[in-house]
């Protein structure tokens, strides 16, 4: 019978493999394409104001904290949970930071570290109820949302605290330091070049590794084309920033986090476990994965990132206010879903969260530039969220 003769499936051709991979990433490429379309659209509608160096810098600074939250939220949603408390946690951490730095006069680097630890503790608190006590995360974090909003008002006694020292404010509105003086921001250019070189080198190394394991390698001209594209895109981005004041600190933080979390989610055991628990918790448990611990750690991580977002927001505003972070959780959740997360868990990527966040950010910024009122902005963003998810669900059903 079948044991003797060789079945018809020869080892899959490289074309088939690449095609499958491409299809798997189609949603991500689709979102990037949508982002490009939106950028071009507003660039035209605003007569070129959107991509002016000043405005690009503003865009980064305005959206930094939402992007940080979106990364954490993406992991939570991949884990098939939700966190409604992040806006309140950000406000609470900002409030505590304000009291510690302004009222008590503690050195700000120490306070920043303590604030991040506080965020981790809050995440651990909520993660405990979700992972070990098995209370639905919607309920736990709804409670957290009210609890920490209330506590930040208590801490600030209903008032704003200001101003922060210059060093701390860099976190929200500073730029990467510059050596020498010129029209162009040299350090930014150097960082851009280094980044592009790193990506191309990494790609090259990956080819060597694939050969080592006898896997197919894409043609050299594709590699060259990709390398050129990377250099051009990063070069253009750096140039735009360099002619103004350089790369904002916020931008550097977001880039480092994106690269770091992309690595963790795609290439580490922990990342794989997060997807597995979200995709099929029982199958994951029967494969020996510590499902509760994984869930718990995802919430701890979310707490730390919420704290970071709170710090960035307070630093940018140069004040700790009890109203900070209102609706941040909704922006972060929307970013994750626009960026390709699935409500049934196990699907999504960190880059997707960033793209989703940028889609929202560019729309906010573009519509403001056009003089559209907040009322219409909100309505249009809601429509885009529904459209993006409906499109996704439609595609998925068609694939079946």
């Amino acid at each position, binding site marked *: 019978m079948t044991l003797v003769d060789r079945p018809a499936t020869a080892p899959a051709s490289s074309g088939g493999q690449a*095609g499958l991979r491409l299809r798997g990433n189609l949603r991500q490429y689709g979102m990037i394409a949508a982002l490009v379309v939106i950028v071009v659209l507003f660039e035209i509608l605003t007569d070129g104001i959107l991509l002016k160096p000043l405005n690009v810098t503003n865009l980064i600074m305005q959206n930094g904290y939402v992007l940080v939250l979106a990364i954490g939220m993406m992991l939570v949603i991949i884990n098939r949970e939700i966190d409604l408390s992040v806006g309140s946690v950000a406000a609470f951490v900002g409030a505590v930071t304000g009291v510690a730095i302004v009222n008590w006069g503690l050195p700000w680097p120490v306070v920043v570290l303590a604030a991040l630890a506080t965020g981790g503790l809050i995440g651990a608190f909520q993660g405990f109820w979700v992972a070990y006590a098995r209370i639905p995360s919607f309920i736990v974090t709804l409670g957290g949302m009210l609890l920490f909003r209330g506590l930040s008002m208590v801490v600030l006694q209903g008032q704003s605290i200001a101003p922060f020292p210059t060093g701390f404010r860099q976190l929200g509105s500073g730029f990467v330091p510059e050596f020498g003086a010129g029209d162009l921001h040299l350090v930014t250019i150097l960082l851009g070049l280094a980044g592009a070189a790193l990506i191309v080198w990494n790609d090259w190394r990956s080819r060597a590794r694939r050969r080592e394991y006898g*896997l197919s390698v894409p043609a050299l001209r594709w590699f060259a084309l990709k390398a050129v594209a990377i250099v051009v895109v990063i070069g253009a981005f750096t140039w735009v920033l360099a002619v103004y004041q350089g790369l904002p600190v916020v931008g550097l933080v977001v880039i480092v986090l994106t690269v770091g979390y992309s690595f963790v989610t795609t290439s580490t055991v922990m990342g794989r*476990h997060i997807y597995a628990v979200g995709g099929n918790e029982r*199958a994951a448990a029967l*494969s020996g994965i510590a499902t509760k611990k994984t869930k718990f750690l995802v919430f701890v991580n979310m707490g730390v990132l919420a704290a970071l977002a709170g710090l960035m927001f307070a630093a940018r505003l140069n004040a700790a206010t009890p109203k900070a972070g209102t609706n941040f959780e909704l922006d972060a959740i929307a970013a994750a879903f626009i960026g390709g997360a699935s409500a049934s868990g196990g699907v999504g990527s960190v880059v997707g969260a960033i793209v989703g966040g940028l889609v929202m950010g560019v729309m906010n910024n573009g519509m403001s530039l056009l003089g559209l009122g907040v009322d219409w902005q909100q309505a249009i963003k809601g429509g885009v969220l529904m459209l993006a998810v409906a499109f996704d669900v439609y595609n998925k059903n068609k694939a079946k």
Partner: protein
Amino acid sequence: MPDHILRMRGIIKEFPGVRALDDVNFDVERGTVHALVGENGAGKSTLMKVLSGVYPHGTYEGEILLDDRPCAFRGLRHSEAAGIVIIHQELALVPGMSIAENVFLGNERSRRGVIDWHATSVETVRLLEKVGLREDPDTPVSGLGVGKQQLVEIAKALAKDVKLLILDEPTAALNEADSENLLQLLRDLRDHGITSILISHKLNEVMAVADAITILRDGRTIETLTVADGVDEDRVIRGMVGRDLDHRYPPRTPEIGEVLFEIVGWNVFHPTVPDRQVVRDASLTVRRGEIVGVAGLMGAGRTELAMSVFGRSYGARISGTVRKEGRELHLATVGDAIAAGLAYVTEDRKELGLLLEEDIRRNVTLANLHRVARRSVIDLHREVADAEGFVDRLRIKAPGVFAKTGNLSGGNQQKVVLSKWMYTDPDVLILDEPTRGIDVGAKYEIYSIIQRLAAEGKGVLLISSELPELLGMCDRIYVMSQGRITGELERREATQEAVMRLMTNTPAVAR
């Protein structure tokens, strides 16, 4: 001339790739208890789903005559309106609602949408009396035992003016006293003119209560026996299994070594029903290079035994000893079990085995990621190479290792699950229904893989509901019934009849 309440004629029901029912005829006389028996997968449940409209008219061939009138049911509500009510093995009660609310669920006593609570209570009391349940109608159902819940289900059926009551394995979850009580109720209902169809694996109960028995096998009606004609259990068993071994198994010369794996005095209780013991004092051994079968009907405790051993993935109050190569193992988590060299291929590959949204590669490495990781960082290229190795060796028919497992056929999905566990390099493999829902060609390939694993000196514990598979594959077979191991048969003494007898016997008789 017999008076038939129901006649099903030439029923054919096909699913993609399988003919589940093949020209089934099924006649039920009015005022009788009619048993429907057969192995797992013989087509009993499918036939009842056709009858109750779960598979609506038009999705099957053949005709259904109720009281000599042809019926074309569009759904459950439609068949219920005609007086056919089915009670499933998993009860369909809402735990938080009261008895009265459950009895009239979907059938509320109401006027213009407003519930008439007085009528509801009064009628519930009347119905509870009929089924012999003395409880306040306002008691929440969650506070009742399974036996009483079963009676509430029957009261619910009576509230719908049932003419033909179908019970699917009604005593599977009941203790002896509750079972006897339920069987008596069926007799009482029969005396009040209600006809019942009883699906059951427990032949002693069938013999005790049924007037007629219809045997299904491989989607066909084999025969209908009248109990009054002096039919005994052996006669029924012969009808259930009497088929040729039409499957083929790869040839093999077993090389069996010393004892590798032992389970001694294993006890497991149900995780949510505290007084229900699902595995009782089970002991078994597996030797190197040996394929050991575990036979039993649904609910016999085979999966519960396997899962509770595998890192306590099921059950409560687990006791007993597990040894490998003579050393006692302490398996508190699945991680412990994997580390100790155990692998468990789950019965339900979609719900418990696979990440359907993920590709083949990520499924293959999931249970042993550290094999491709250094300091917790995964070598993605080596992972692809390893996964491709399995796709090649096990002949997984897929466009490549990046193909989504959810899009593969059942046989190929099962090969991915096997790959996952072979990747952990286990010494003992527990395979739970490894060929369920797989076509014949893929089955043969999976048999070859199992035999290769045994030839490598691993011990294999094969749980299966298909008797020919167990007889064709195993060197030794344990038989379970109602949580106990009721017998152990060497290959040469194992016949379908012998195994079936142990499967259907109550353990007290067998011991």
